[in-house]
């Protein structure tokens, strides 16, 4: 993990004090709601259907046990005893009171956490591969760059009022687990000659009402040139991005309207004009961050397996190990993915007791470190293989041992109409019904990598466009109705799913998804994913399977 310094600590404390004074002035009537709203949004505080909602940043999804324990304590003291982990690797509280929010921010600041830039038209929390730094297939650890981006973009005065929100994602592996091609800017790190790091840049991806896959924009930039180049992109976007229509304000629209070559030219011209002396520190700062990462003290020759006979005889453990444990770069270690998707549960939610317990498990078995994934799960990134059984036993005790990672019941669902003021339909109860139904099927079938994502409106916070099976909740004449899309992908071969037919009623969604999965299982060839099968056989047979 990155070790925050005094500057970071003082920044979050000052910001918290500033917000306390803004809240006091609001409550005293010295500022109106219209004046206060942008200020509270800059501190992650929304007003939703039932209450305020506070979104807390988890920079690039990395959490310590201490921070997770603090999040649990906040859930108990100021909320209703649970938190919701989001597709931006953040956490949301659904019931905070305005009058207590300054106290919450103080508590967060005590563990170097905050809610800055979790809302508003600024550069949002940078996201990355949840296996960053530990993945067996990783080429470059993306965390130092994420930290550099965090420092550069935090309270950057030039980019506080962009045309629209702006999202970065970073990966350092050929297999993209950070969905970089559906972000405003996606960065792919590669190793260059002489231990250097080079970055490929993708621009203009996004979802919402106009889903776009990012276009390849710039190749192999060394670290010393990267921030000035990103600054040039941001400046061009800030200057030319549309402000007349919020639905056309993202950089994906600027790219579509301007054209790739012209936009690249504009960025190059801006890049040439940037005063590079202000960026001379980058290489040394990058090296400093690399040096500041607290690296786990891995055992040189760890035991690779446990001799406990009970592990051999537990089919549930075997299933969990097969589905939820991923290869680690360090021999003898594993990455354990903790599913926040118990069958019939609320995707991404964890109770305060679960949060505290998992913080303890991380402390005992994973070097006190946790990650949040954009699929709304948690990760124990550094588990000795010989400890896996004990970890699984501990997870069983807190109902977080569902062996369903990357299976259809590992559903991404946004808060939808149960919480969100922008929603057109519910997502969570649909996800609950789908996972209950499909879990039985998937236990009997050898399924690989089928994603189901459910959004409660066209804003697509659950990334339904790039799911193998996407579900979009709409309101049709006062009744919830769900559009189904198939064939999306969010990896290195990212693609937008296609609508397969008319929307279905809420009660019919679980059956429709089961039919899609069953049809896929019937016609797939060897290792084909659902989206591969969809590409091969086309829309009609799937449509027939659902509606026929």
């Amino acid at each position, binding site marked *: 993990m990155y070790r925050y310094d005094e500057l970071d600590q003082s920044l979050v404390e000052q910001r918290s004090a500033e917000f306390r004074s803004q809240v006091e002035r*609001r*409550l*005293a*009537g010295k500022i109106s*709601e219209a004046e206060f709203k942008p200020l509270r949004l800059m501190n992650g505080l929304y*007003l939703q*259907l*039932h*209450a*305020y909602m506070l979104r807390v940043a988890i920079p690039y999804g990395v959490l310590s046990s201490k921070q997770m324990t603090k999040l649990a304590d906040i859930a108990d003291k100021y909320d*209703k*005893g*649970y938190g919701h982990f989001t597709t931006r690797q953040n956490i949301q509280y659904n*019931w*905070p*009171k*305005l*009058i207590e929010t300054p106290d919450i921010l103080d508590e967060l600041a005590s563990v170097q956490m905050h809610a800055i830039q979790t809302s508003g038209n600024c550069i949002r929390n940078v996201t990355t591969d949840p296996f960053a730094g530990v993945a067996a297939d990783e080429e470059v650890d993306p965390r130092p760059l994420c930290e550099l981006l965090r420092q550069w973009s935090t309270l950057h005065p030039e980019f506080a009022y962009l045309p629209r929100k702006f999202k970065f994602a970073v990966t350092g592996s050929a297999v993209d687990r950070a969905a970089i091609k559906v972000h405003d800017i996606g960065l792919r790190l590669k190793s260059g000659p002489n231990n250097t790091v080079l970055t490929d840049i993708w621009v203009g991806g996004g979802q919402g009402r106009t889903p776009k896959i990012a276009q390849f924009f710039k190749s192999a930039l060394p670290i010393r040139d990267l921030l000035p180049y990103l600054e040039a992109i941001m400046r061009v976007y800030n200057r030319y991005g549309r402000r007349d229509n919020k639905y056309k304000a993202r950089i994906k629209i600027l790219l579509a309207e301007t054209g790739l070559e012209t936009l690249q030219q504009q960025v190059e011209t801006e890049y040439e004009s940037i005063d590079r002396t202000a960026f001379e520190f980058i290489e040394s700062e990058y090296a400093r961050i690399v040096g500041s990462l607290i690296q786990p003290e891995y055992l040189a020759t760890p035991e690779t397996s446990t001799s406990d006979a009970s592990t051999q005889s537990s089919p549930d453990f075997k299933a969990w190990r097969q589905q939820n444990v991923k290869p680690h770069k360090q021999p003898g270690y594993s990455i354990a993915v903790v599913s926040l998707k*118990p069958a*019939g*549960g*609320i995707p991404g*939610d*964890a*109770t305060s007791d679960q949060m505290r317990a998992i913080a303890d498990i991380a402390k005992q078995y994973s070097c006190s470190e946790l990650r949040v994934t954009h699929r709304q799960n948690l990760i124990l990134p550094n588990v000795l293989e010989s400890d896996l059984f004990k970890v699984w036993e501990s997870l069983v005790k807190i*109902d977080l041992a569902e062996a369903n990672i990357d299976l259809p019941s590992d559903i991404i669902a946004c808060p939808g*109409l*149960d*919480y969100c003021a922008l*929603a057109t339909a*519910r997502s*969570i*109860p649909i996800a*609950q*019904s789908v996972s209950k139904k499909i879990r039985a099927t998937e236990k009997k079938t050898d399924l690989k990598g089928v994603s189901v994502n459910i959004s409660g409106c066209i804003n697509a916070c659950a990334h339904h466009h790039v799911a193998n099976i996407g579900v979009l909740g709409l*309101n049709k004449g*006062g*009744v*919830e109705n769900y559009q189904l899309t198939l064939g999306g992908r969010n990896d290195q071969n990212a693609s937008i799913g296609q609508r397969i037919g008319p929307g279905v009623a809420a009660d019919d969604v679980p059956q429709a998804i089961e039919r899609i999965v069953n049809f896929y299982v019937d016609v797939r060839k060897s290792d084909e994913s659902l989206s591969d099968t969809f590409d091969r056989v086309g829309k009609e047979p799937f449509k027939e399977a659902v509606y026929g």
Partner: protein
Amino acid sequence: MSSKATHAIIIANDLRTGRIVYFTNASDWSESVQDAELLSSDSAQERLAIAAIDETNNLVIDPNLVDANVNAGTELQLAEIREQIRVSGPTILGSNHAATSQAA
């Protein structure tokens, strides 16, 4: 208030807590929907104007009229699903955690 509904009620969010509150016939705010004043089309706009004063007084945010029907003379039924959920709380099934309801 639309022509499809028999009545309306006024809903807002409490500034301090954010919780849903209902405008009462005592021109006050209550967290209980039972206390909501049932408004006819004749009185709705006039009462909304009075409720809106409390927005200026920094007590509530965004007071607005919500369509409601009174069934069998007693039961209040809100016309839109969005407002039904606002009033009754999240509709989450069973739930893997406690206390998601509005009342909790």
